[in-house]
């Protein structure tokens, strides 16, 4: 497996943006309010993330009026769909590698002298930060 296959897409990996893209990946489109409800982002944060995603060509943003009220509709572009699917696939592969590495380690009973022996061992944790 090539190393670059496991390099994470920084634009997509940011937790707020990953949440937005994940929500959009399961629908045709969603409006600003729904994205706010599902991701828990503030209006300012969501707006900033959407601008970045729009600039990168991952989403399309349509501003319109519905019953005289402004409404912002957001949808994934084909490129956005591909990038978020690739990203989750990479995270799954990293998780599988980490699980494999953990399973391959010899199991040792923790003792007072060895309790910090793994402190410097690093595994991809699946954490989104």
């Amino acid at each position: 497996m090539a190393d670059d296959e496991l390099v994470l897409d920084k634009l997509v990996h940011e937790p707020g943006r990953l949440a937005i893209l994940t929500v959009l990946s399961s629908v045709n489109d969603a409006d600003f309010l729904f994205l706010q409800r599902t991701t828990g982002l503030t209006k300012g944060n969501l707006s900033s993330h959407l601008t970045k995603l729009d600039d990168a060509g991952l989403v399309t943003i349509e501003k319109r009026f519905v019953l005289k009220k402004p409404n912002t509709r957001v949808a994934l572009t084909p490129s956005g769909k591909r990038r978020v699917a690739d990203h989750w696939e990479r995270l799954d592969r990293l998780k599988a590698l980490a699980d494999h590495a953990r399973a391959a380690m010899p199991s040792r009973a923790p003792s007072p002298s060895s309790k910090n022996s793994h402190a410097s061992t690093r595994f991809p944790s699946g954490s989104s930060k």
Partner: protein
Amino acid sequence: MDPERLRSAAAEYPYLRGLVSIPAGALFIVAALGNAGWGPLEHDWVFVTAVLLIAAACAAINRFYNEHYGRVTPSTRQQVKAVAVTAAGVLLMLVAATLLRSRASWSLDLPVNPIPAVFGALMLAYSAAVAGPRPHHVVIWGGLMVAGLVPVWDGADPSNVGLVMCGVAVMLNGLLDHLQIVRTLGPASPSLGRG
């Protein structure tokens, strides 16, 4: 972040806007009372007015969801699935209801109540196709189906009682669907800004 939770919240939300089901359930009950010629509903204009009021209530509730939880267009795949299950279900419902108990010569004429039986089965299949199904879908729609199939419905035509049972089930299911949205997305709050 749980990606499955985010995906299912988005995909199921359009189908769990359950408060709309409360006036829809009332429509079943109004239809049953109209068929039975109960009170003012024996007049056609009263029935039509009741239907218009119910439609207005559905529109107002739809607007409530749009303003408090937002708008979502389901994926094309999910829309196709919902339409296919509905179309096939309605067709099967007509055939099954006629087969179970009707005046048709090929009817089995069983002592069952075909409307709740086939409607419960249809809604169970629909819920499974678009939103899970959740445990309350299984209990309510499964219960409705079983209640219709219990062979105690001999005697007079049980269609109107069946419609009332369907109406109550639709209302109860809608309420529980709405609570599911509240659990997933939080209570309706006017404090969130609109983009």
